[in-house]
């Protein structure tokens, strides 16, 4: 089996996590970082060879009659509870997991490399906790790779939790800062809450279908759905509930609308971590999850509509917020939310167009394509932001301005990222976004127009960020600070690599590789849609150029004119405050307090009463245990006599 070595993909990062975590402290910081990076490079190589063998090799049964097969490289029974309830661990290779292997290993390797510079101060001295950082990065890479190659939904859930944990650890990396601690707790709690729904969904699904395996589910989605035929709950079929719950789990990880609140705060973590986890890989886990179960979702329109509405709304909502944020990482975070919502929407609209799953799968393909390109250019943008933040020691764009002169490489790389995300040909984002728009128009013009507006807003806010960082006005070098400059090669090299990928990734004929049913899907450029989307993007860019290229009064005027809207968007439409209100005022006050009172007074009270009774009873009878052996003997002897007398009386009478 040519894929035997695929186990290395998981083994190396896991080993590195343990090795760096346990031995790292003894090894010295620089060496730890270099070893971690080299190991990640090996993983990268393995991932690429697997993916290339999978996509281009022909001898392993990857391709049968033009249909890509999914390959079960490993499948172990891990926990056998009963005959039916078996939890397996294994490695499943199919188009989307092979693609995700490429994405994760590439970004992870570049982030490892970038972090060598980022996690050091100006003089190249590594920060405190350097080894911990690298071991957590390895843990995250392990869990994420495990997630994408999961053979069954339960393994996926396990790794889902593990990426949640490693994300928590990395957000809270600067554990001395209260903001980072709160952010990590928030991320963990929100995603954990969503995972609870995921688990419930898994249980419902596997209860009716009797299996966890993706292959078994995918082989006959119709029978899987009909297994719960006629079972309804609150007017919807049980399967719709199961899929909705699973989607909620994915939405938590992917920061869809009501559960998005953790992602902007997660930017408290180190910036390369944001690039890896909160832009490129972990946040698309939700999209990946829906894509994995796509054949089921297609058949269950109720659940699919929920995905569609949530995705489309989130896309617009996050784009609106991203337009006004002043912290560049938060602006990028909202942009990420918006783009992931794009992918969700694309998955959701691909369902009921055309005849059959093949033609209808355009949105699916587009979504995966966008996932791929977005991972590249969003990681690029985040790493650029990291380089900038490293140079000026601030997240606020008011401290940047006019950096173009000082950091030309970073500036150009950022510009490429912006062009890619805005959807300007020939950069990567154009192709994927275009296909998403086509899929949306096919579903209904409403969604097409909606998503096109979002695309325009994307172009606007990305260029707003770009201009505010690199132009707007001359950079003021503060007293006592050296002028910002481009970073050393470990930091610029990843930028250049990602920039190149962002330029050319769109030219990959993605439809040949990743489709719903494994058959190659021919994509045609839909000229009216393409031209209109480019026009919208150009309008967005033009607007941004007019408002932000040179310092002027226009933004301030607009701000004062739409003050309410601006403030609301700046404060993220008060979602955090709403959550705060709900949790603190309603849940804590109205629900938890009575429960706590009940616990403290009734339950504890009962226990205390028992304890007090025991204590007072022992005080009362304490005198009996005098320790004087003579009184014991007296009592014992009298008792014995009594017994003897009674026996005698009974015997004699």
């Amino acid at each position, binding site marked *: 089996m040519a894929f035997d070595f695929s186990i290395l993909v998981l083994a190396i990062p896991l080993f590195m996590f343990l090795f760096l975590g346990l031995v790292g402290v003894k090894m010295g910081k620089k060496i730890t970082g270099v070893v971690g990076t080299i190991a990640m490079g090996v993983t990268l190589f393995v991932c690429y060879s697997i993916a290339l063998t999978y996509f281009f090799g022909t001898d392993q049964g990857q391709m049968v009659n033009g249909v890509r097969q999914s390959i079960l490289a490993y499948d172990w029974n891990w926990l056998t509870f009963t005959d039916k309830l078996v939890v397996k661990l294994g490695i499943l290779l199919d188009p989307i997991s092979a693609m995700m292997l490429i994405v994760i290993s590439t970004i992870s390797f570049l982030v490892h490399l970038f972090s060598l510079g980022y996690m050091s101060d100006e003089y190249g001295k590594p920060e405190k906790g350097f080894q911990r950082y690298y071991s957590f990065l390895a843990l995250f890479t392990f869990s994420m790779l495990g997630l994408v190659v999961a053979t069954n939904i339960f393994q996926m859930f396990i790794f889902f939790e593990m990426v949640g944990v490693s994300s928590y650890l990395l957000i809270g990396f600067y554990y001395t800062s209260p903001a980072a601690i709160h952010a990590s707790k928030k991320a963990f709690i929100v995603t954990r809450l969503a995972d609870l729904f995921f688990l419930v969904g898994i249980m419902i699904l596997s209860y009716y279908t009797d299996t966890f395996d993706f292959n078994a589910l995918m082989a006959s989605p119709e029978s899987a759905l009909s297994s719960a035929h006629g079972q309804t709950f609150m007017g919807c079929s049980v399967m719709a509930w199961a899929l909705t719950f699973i989607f909620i789990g994915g939405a938590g990880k992917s920061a869809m609308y009501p559960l998005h609140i953790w992602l902007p705060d997660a930017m408290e973590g180190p910036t390369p971590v944001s690039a890896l986890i909160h832009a490129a890989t972990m946040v698309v886990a939700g999209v990946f999850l829906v894509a994995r179960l796509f054949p089921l979702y297609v058949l269950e329109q109720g659940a699919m509509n929920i995905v569609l509405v949530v995705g489309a709304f989130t896309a617009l909502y996050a784009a609106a917020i991203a337009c006004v944020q002043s912290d560049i990482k938060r602006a990028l975070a909202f942009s990420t939310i918006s783009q992931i919502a794009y992918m969700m929407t694309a998955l959701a609209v691909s369902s009921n167009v055309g005849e059959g799953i093949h033609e209808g799968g355009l949105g699916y393909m587009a979504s995966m394509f966008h996932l791929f390109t977005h991972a590249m250019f969003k990681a690029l943008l985040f790493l650029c932001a990291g380089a900038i933040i490293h140079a000026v020691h601030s997240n606020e764009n008011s401290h940047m301005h006019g950096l173009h002169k000082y950091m030309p490489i970073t500036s150009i790389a950022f510009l490429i990222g912006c062009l890619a995300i805005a959807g300007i040909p020939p950069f990567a984002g154009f192709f994927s976004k275009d296909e998403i728009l086509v899929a949306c128009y096919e579903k209904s013009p409403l969604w097409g127009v909606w998503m096109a507006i979002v695309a325009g807003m994307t172009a606007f806010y990305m260029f707003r960020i770009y201009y505010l960082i690199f132009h707007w006005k001359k950079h003021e070098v503060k007293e006592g600070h050296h002028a910002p400059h481009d970073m050393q090669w470990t930091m610029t090299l990843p930028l250049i690599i990602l920039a190149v990928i962002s330029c050319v990734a769109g030219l990959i004929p993605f439809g040949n590789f990743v489709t719903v049913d494994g058959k190659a899907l021919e994509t045609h450029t839909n000229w009216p849609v393409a031209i209109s989307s480019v026009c919208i993007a150009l309008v967005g860019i033009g607007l941004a150029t007019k408002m932000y290229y040179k310092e002027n009064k226009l933004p301030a005027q607009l701000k004062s004119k739409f003050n309410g809207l601006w403030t609301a968007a700046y404060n993220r439409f008060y979602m955090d405050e709403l959550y705060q209100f709900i949790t603190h005022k309603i849940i804590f006050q109205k629900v938890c307090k009575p429960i706590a009172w009940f616990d403290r007074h009734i339950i504890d009270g009962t226990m205390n009463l028992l304890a007090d009774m025991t204590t007072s009873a022992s005080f009362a009878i304490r005198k009996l245990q005098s320790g004087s052996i003579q009184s014991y003997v007296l009592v014992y002897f009298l008792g*014995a*006599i009594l017994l*003897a007398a009674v026996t005698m009386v009974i015997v004699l009478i």
Partner: protein
Amino acid sequence: MDSVGNLIIYAIAAIAIIAFSILAVTTKKILRSATYLLFTLLATAVIYFQMDYEFLGAVQIAVYAGGIVVLFVFAIMLTHKPGKDAEPLSSHKKWLGVSAAFAGAAVCAGALFSYGKFCCAKLLPDSGFDIKEIGSALLDTDKFGYLLPFEAISILLLACIIGGVVIARRR
């Protein structure tokens, strides 16, 4: 109980046992108490002899009278100043003890006298055994053999020697 001589010996031994037992627990001087105990044990030995258990009587004298009482005397010497009386007992405790003892004695006596034949049972003819029989029975594993308890007692004595040494050792 055949001869008058036997009866007289029995009467002397019984009276000695009763009298010295009472004295042993009521005397104020502890050394006297130990001495009365010695007399009681000797009188008991006399009773054993009278019942033709010469070996047991010899053991009684050697171990009890010769060993244990000497041990008591040593302990008393070590822990008491000579000539010092014990404190008088509180009447409350005394009456408790007396009543308990009498109650016990009464119940046992009741049981005893309800089986009247014991009172004047004839001493059956001696089965006629000697030391050799006792020795072989002690080391025998047959039906009436006592090897196992014998070994158990040996181990107990060993443990007791070690325990005594360890406890009494000056630290």
